[in-house]
Every structure is written in structure tokens, then in C-alpha cells.
């Protein structure tokens, strides 16, 4: 009996230690351990298909508020970070950082050019979702929702996602950095019919 009690007590202590260690270790510092600040490569030819490729490399990866760096191992390497904390340095972009990188934009808002950002390059870009929604930045314009095609975006004051494909029922498959609990992926969404969302188009595609 005493042995069982001792075992149970040991188990509880061990469990408590495990839980507290886990809670303290939420900070994976993915950015510090994996990401870089290398220059972007200007690209004179860029396509919607190319941006789909960029987006799909981020699929199944994490989400980081204020972030913009991920690998391509199809795992969220920083799960369960506190939400809306830009200092947790976890894996993934947030919705606007992801869009900025997939649309291959410049950090200079007056520059319409296209720039290839490596997925491990930590960059968010100057635009929050509300900026995209308002068409802020030389490459970005507001656009009627009816006419949106793949890799155009739907943005609200607090979120943005890009059209991956249109569904027959009028909804869209949206590729987006959705949230800490979800990561980055493709989901069926009804943003197009939601009055909080407006259409946004990145200008300058070659195809």
C-alpha cells in the first residue's frame, strides 16, 4: 500500500514538473534558431502559379502573430504559443505577413516590384490586414469581390486570406494563415459573402 502511495506521489510530482516545464518552454524561439534576414531577390517575372507554389510551401506550417518565417516540414514547430503576442518568435506568418510574402512584395510601399523572399527569411512587411483591405501600397488595389480570381485576396480589418480556388456553391477555398490554433493551410470560407471583407488585388502579375 505504502509503495502504491509513494508511486502515486512520485507520478504526481513528475507530472507537475512535466507540465510546468512544458508551460515555461512554449517559447520555441523558432525564429532565433532557424530564420535569417537575408536580402530578397528581385524577380522580373512572377505569376499567380508561382505564388501558389510559395503559399503551398507554408501549408501545414505554424502561425505566428507578427511573424513571417517558416520551414517546409509540414509541422507546426511552435504550437500553442500565446495568441496575439508578437514576441513568442514562433514558426509561421500571420495573415498579412503570409500574404505579403506570397505576393512577393517590397518592404517599400511605393515599389510595385516583385521580390522572392526565402521561406526562412523573417519578414512581415509593412501592411496589416486593414492596409491590404484599403488597397494601401503601390502594388495593392481594392477590387470588386465578384471579379476576384485565384491569388487575389479577401481582407477585413483584422484578417486576410487569398483565393486558392472557387467552390461551386459560391464559397472559396482560401489559403491563409488562420490562427495559432490552426496554423497555415487551405480552408473553405465564405469571406466573399461577408460584408466585413473587401476584395484586394496585387498588381503586376505576368501570368
Amino acid at each position, binding site marked *: 500500500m505504502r509503495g502504491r502511495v509513494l508511486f502515486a506521489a512520485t507520478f504526481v510530482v513528475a507530472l507537475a514538473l512535466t507540465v510546468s516545464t512544458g508551460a515555461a518552454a512554449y517559447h520555441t524561439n523558432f525564429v532565433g534558431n532557424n530564420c535569417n*534576414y537575408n536580402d530578397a531577390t528581385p524577380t522580373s517575372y512572377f505569376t499567380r502559379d508561382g505564388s501558389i507554389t510559395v503559399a503551398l510551401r507554408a501549408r501545414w506550417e505554424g502561425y505566428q*502573430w*507578427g511573424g513571417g518565417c517558416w520551414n517546409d516540414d509540414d509541422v507546426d514547430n511552435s504550437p500553442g504559443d500565446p*495568441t*496575439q*503576442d*508578437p514576441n513568442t518568435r514562433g514558426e509561421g506568418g*500571420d*495573415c*498579412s*505577413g503570409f500574404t505579403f510574402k506570397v505576393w512577393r512584395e517590397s*518592404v*517599400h*510601399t*511605393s515599389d510595385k516590384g516583385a521580390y522572392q523572399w526565402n521561406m526562412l527569411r523573417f*519578414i*512581415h*512587411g*509593412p*501592411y*496589416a*490586414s*486593414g*492596409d491590404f483591405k*484599403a488597397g*494601401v*501600397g*503601390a502594388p495593392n488595389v481594392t477590387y470588386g469581390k465578384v471579379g476576384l480570381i485565384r491569388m487575389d485576396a479577401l481582407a477585413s*480589418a*483584422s*484578417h486576410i486570406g487569398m483565393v486558392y480556388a472557387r467552390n461551386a456553391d459560391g464559397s472559396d477555398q482560401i489559403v491563409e494563415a488562420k490562427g495559432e490554433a490552426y496554423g497555415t493551410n487551405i480552408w473553405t470560407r465564405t469571406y466573399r459573402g461577408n460584408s*466585413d471583407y473587401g476584395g484586394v488585388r496585387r498588381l503586376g502579375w505576368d501570368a
Partner: protein
Amino acid sequence: VLALAAAAAVLVAVVRDGGDEGAASRLVDGSLPLRPPEWFDRNAVRGRVLLRPAAKVEPRRLRSCMRLLRLDSIPRQTLVVERVGLRGRSLTFRDPRAPQIYACDASAGTREGAGPWCGASVGRLRAGAVTDPRVDLANCVDASGRAVAFAWVEPRPTTTWLAIDDGDGVEVYRTAGTVPVRITSVDMGDDASSTSFGLTQYTAEGGRLDDRDVTVAVAG
């Protein structure tokens, strides 16, 4: 409603900035800055702050801000903080119906678009504090074309004065109760999505509560 009105009246009386005008640079609206408390560096610039119910705010200004934020209406008693500073002016107000806070930002110029505002931000509140500084820098520029970043700074409960040093000068802000202070900075990070500044918080009598370097970045 009466309690709200009474609280508003007290707060308005407390934070209506009508101090002596300083002699330094002009504020963004062309007016002279106020004189900061004497313990500040003599070159520090103090902007104006006004806290009043939405019903008392210049209607066109508030309406254009609400349009930008896609808000159909806000209660007339909602307290609105109006700030006019060296490089920017702003409206900040909490949503009494949800844990959210809003800002509309204006600078001397905008990169594009007309209207009084160069940007707007929606922040979430957790336990009454903003979860993110909601940096807004994509479209706001000063008179010389430099990017101007706006961000919320959360004052401590006993803070009356904030000083922001962005390397281009020190701007002094008077708090408006515990409402996050919408500050400006022109020290942009190399990635053009963050800004850095020195933040010092003081009590009403000049006691230093906090002094640190802060870097905040665009998110969401």
C-alpha cells in the same frame, strides 16, 4: 449613463490640455506645442490631448474615422481620446460593447488616398490592456516624406506622462486615464515593418516609473 457622464466630465476636466504654449516646433496641425513639465529636457515637445464623449467630437472627423473602421455607430457617451502631436494626430476609443479598441491616425501626408486619415487600427483588449501595439506605418508620412509609425503604448496605472524618444527628438504625452496612448515614431527598422523608440513613464510629479527601449512591429 449618469455615472458615465460624471466620469467623463471628471476625466475631461483632468486631461483637457490647456497649458502654456511652448516655443519649439509646430505640431502637425500647425499649432504651437504646449510646455512640458519643467523636469523634461527643454527641447522636448508636448502635444495636446483631449478626452471627451463621442457626442462632443467634431462630427465630420469622427464620422470619417468610423467609416474607415466600418463602424455604423458608437454610443454617444463613448470616451474618445484626441491627440495632436509633433508628427501625427489620432483618435482612440474603446468599444463599450466589445473588448476592442480603435484608432484613426493622421500625419502631415499620406502616401496615397485622400481624407483626413492615413490609417486605422483595431486592437483587442485582454484584462483592459491592448494585446498588441497595432503598429500602423504603411501609409503615413511626415512633411518631408518620411514614414511615420503609430502605435499604442500601455501606460502604467500611476503614469501621467510618457516620453517617447525616437532618435529624432523627445515627444511628451499626457495620459488620458488608463487609455492606451497612441504615440508616433519615425525610427523605422531595416525591414520597414517595425519601429523603435525609448519609452519613459513618469508620475504626475516626475517620478520615473519605467525607462526602456522598445521595438514594435506590424502584425495581423
